[in-house]
């Protein structure tokens, strides 16, 4: 028995690259863990910038566990959404975020809760990082009263304070983001607006209009292109004359960032936020990332890319595994600890699912509420002249 343990322990040592193998099989106190470590991160490509974000990032144990928890929660939540969709409990259009978790977690780690964020329709991850519970997100997906938008929005329409959605039309949120940045500048509150869009939306005309206004007025706007390599079924090479999305603001400085590494994203976003807060105007970040699911639930995601490609990303650059490996290899946490966290998250997601499938649907009166800002109630014309409902906002 003892020799067997030694063998296992040695094997684990080799896997994690540590030489304190004896400690693996015995329970440890927190004092045994490395509280903080510095990691080499990939250098960002720069556009119109003399200096970029640092190539080393510091990570505390608490931060690491927090990022892990965030990313793993988003992953579990999305996999649950996938399952609920396949059971036809979630209906309609649903775009999942699994694979891209490092972007949401890294950005949130680098900005303040009072900063602003707006994104497109792949919004579940950001809704979570901006403070909405898994319960409310899943209940929104199932169209229940307890959903974050009262069950009236569905997958693409989720909001929270300082989080402006959740926008269904490709590229339409980008000018809004520039506008939010103008409000920040006008109010002089030193806040920034993170404006996200995908590689597909990067070809929409409204983006270039927004770039121009943002640069003209030096707005504190971080434009972030989450480049997951495919705009629906079209690879970036087939859709964009230049796939250097970080350069496409031309006169706006840009960064190309490894979007699968939460530390890289955090450092780059920190750099970009400092740039904006220093009054230097907008900056563009391209996060190179990958979505494991298809574009939406109706897209199996394998007709325009190979299963091998997806598998390779999963095995070589999965954001969650990467962080986990890093922490293990630096003795910042144990395998058991991660397992415990996983179990806890799984439980949390199960509970949320329970809520999202048992909470009642919103009452019919909700159909007409919140169309206009109006008090006393407004009369809404219905399917026939005598069917009228009241709208309250």
């Amino acid at each position, binding site marked *: 028995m003892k020799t067997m343990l030694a063998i296992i322990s040695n094997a684990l040592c080799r896997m994690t690259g540590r030489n304190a193998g004896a400690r693996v099989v015995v329970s440890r106190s927190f004092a045994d863990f490395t509280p903080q470590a510095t990691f080499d991160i990939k250098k960002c490509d720069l556009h119109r910038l003399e200096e970029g974000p640092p190539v080393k990032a510091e990570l505390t144990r608490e931060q690491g566990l927090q990022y892990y928890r965030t990313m793993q929660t988003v992953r579990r939540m999305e996999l649950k959404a996938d399952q609920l969709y396949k059971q036809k409990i979630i*209906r*309609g*259009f649903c775009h999942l975020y699994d694979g891209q978790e490092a972007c949401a977690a890294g950005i949130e780690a680098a900005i303040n809760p009072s900063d602003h964020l707006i994104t497109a329709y792949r919004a579940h991850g950001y809704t979570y990082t901006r403070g909405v519970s898994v319960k409310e997100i899943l209940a929104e997906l199932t*169209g229940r009263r307890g959903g974050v938008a009262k*069950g*009236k*929005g*569905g997958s*693409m*329409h989720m909001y929270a304070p300082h989080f402006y959605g959740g926008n*269904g*039309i*490709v*590229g*339409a949120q980008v000018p809004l983001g520039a506008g939010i940045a103008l409000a920040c500048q006008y109010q002089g509150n030193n806040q920034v607006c993170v404006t996200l869009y995908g590689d*597909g*939306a990067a*070809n*929409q*005309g*409204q983006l270039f209009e927004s770039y121009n206004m943002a640069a003209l007025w030096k707005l504190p706007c971080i434009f972030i292109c989450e480049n997951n390599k495919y*705009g*629906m*079924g*079209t690879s970036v090479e*087939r*859709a*964009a004359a230049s796939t250097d999305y970080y350069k496409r603001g031309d006169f706006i400085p840009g960064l190309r960032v490894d979007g699968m590494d939460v530390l890289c994203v955090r450092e780059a976003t920190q750099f970009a936020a400092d740039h904006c807060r220093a009054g230097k105007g907008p900056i563009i970040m391209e996060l190179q990332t990958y979505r494991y699911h298809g574009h939406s639930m*109706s897209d199996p995601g394998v*007709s*325009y890319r190979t299963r091998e490609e997806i598998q390779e990303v999963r095995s070589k650059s999965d954001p969650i595994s990467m962080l986990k490996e890093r922490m293990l290899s630096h003795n910042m946490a144990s395998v058991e600890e991660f397992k415990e966290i996983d179990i806890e998250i799984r439980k949390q997601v199960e509970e949320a699912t329970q809520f999202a499938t048992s909470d009642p*649907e*919103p009452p*019919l009166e*909700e*159909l*007409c509420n919140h*169309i206009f800002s109006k008090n006393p109630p407004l009369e*809404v*014309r*219905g*399917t*026939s*002249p*005598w*069917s009228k*409902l009241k*709208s309250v906002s």
Partner: protein
Amino acid sequence: MRSSWQYSNIIQQLTTINPYKSHICCCLYRQKVEFNYSICAFLFCRNTTKIQPAGSQLARVLSILHFFNLIGSPKGPTQKMNLFQSITSALDNTLASDPTAVIFGEDVAFGGVFRCTVGLRDKYGKDRVFNTPLCEQGIVGFGIGVAVAGATAIAEIQFADYIFPAFDQIVNEAAKYRYRSGNLFDCGNLTIRAPWGCVGHGALYHSQSPEAFFAHCPGLKIVIPRGPIQAKGLLLSCIADKNPCIFFEPKILYRAAVEQVPEEPYTIPLSQAEILQEGSDVTLVSWGTQIHVLKEVASMAQEKLGVSCEVIDLQTILPWDIETVCKSVVKTGRLLISHEAPVTGGFAAEISSTVQEECFLNLEAPISRVCGYDTPFPHIFEPFYTPDKWKCFEAIKKMINY
């Protein structure tokens, strides 16, 4: 099975387009193509080897011959097709007979999200069926350029809900090109296809019926089919028509509607409503998906109330067939119009207003509109929002008892 009004129309068309006139058309067309060839090459360089003036003239002659032979007689072999397959068939016929025809839009190369262009890239080449980036304004503007330079442009907007970034190009550029250039230029060769209407779970951005926005715009034609046979015939008419056309396809019917559709090309005249069922008490007017609801309502009214309904499929929203609708209302004295789009400012309002001008003294009851609520298209309330058969039936009862 075609009614007499259809035949009279066919005869009228045959007599107005005589061979002499079509010859002139071809000559003019040729000159125009040659004249525009450099623009065309500039706009559309990757396709220049395919756009040959002589070839396109030949194609045009052939398609006119097709027009003569086949209009109004969709005979010959038929095949069981659903609505998306009949669209594919129409596009296939067009690409085969017109070498200048090109199809482009988001994801169309691999078949499109609703499978309407499946197999066409492999059959006709990637320079004729190709993907565009996600840029609706660009797609339509580009299509106008392709069309004005003499090629046949068939653009797909992935959902009718996504058409609004292209609103300016459609309303200000496409619709007014002929007028503002004093008839020198036009983009009549442009057809814009877009999936339209409710689908059961589409929520705010995948369910809308925006025909009324475009119906306010002279210079456009707006067409909505109710099933596979109409879809193919009307789409081919739109493609052949010398005006920019918007062709909205009821997406819920893509797979649900199945008919025996002729394999050969045929056209169904635009701006002509079709009387699906003759009746004497109430006229029911609609288009697209809703026409199927009204057919059911007509049976219910007959069965439960003994009320005889005349069901009219408008088919073309702009310019619409006033005559057929008004003649029917003169006969029945009652009119119900139904569409999924919100009631206020919907196209039912235009029909209602015109009918009361034309048939005021014939009306036995106020015209009834059974339409969507004046709310954004809701997510989970869709069954409540849509003007279903019970709501229409209720409206008929009220009209009869008025």
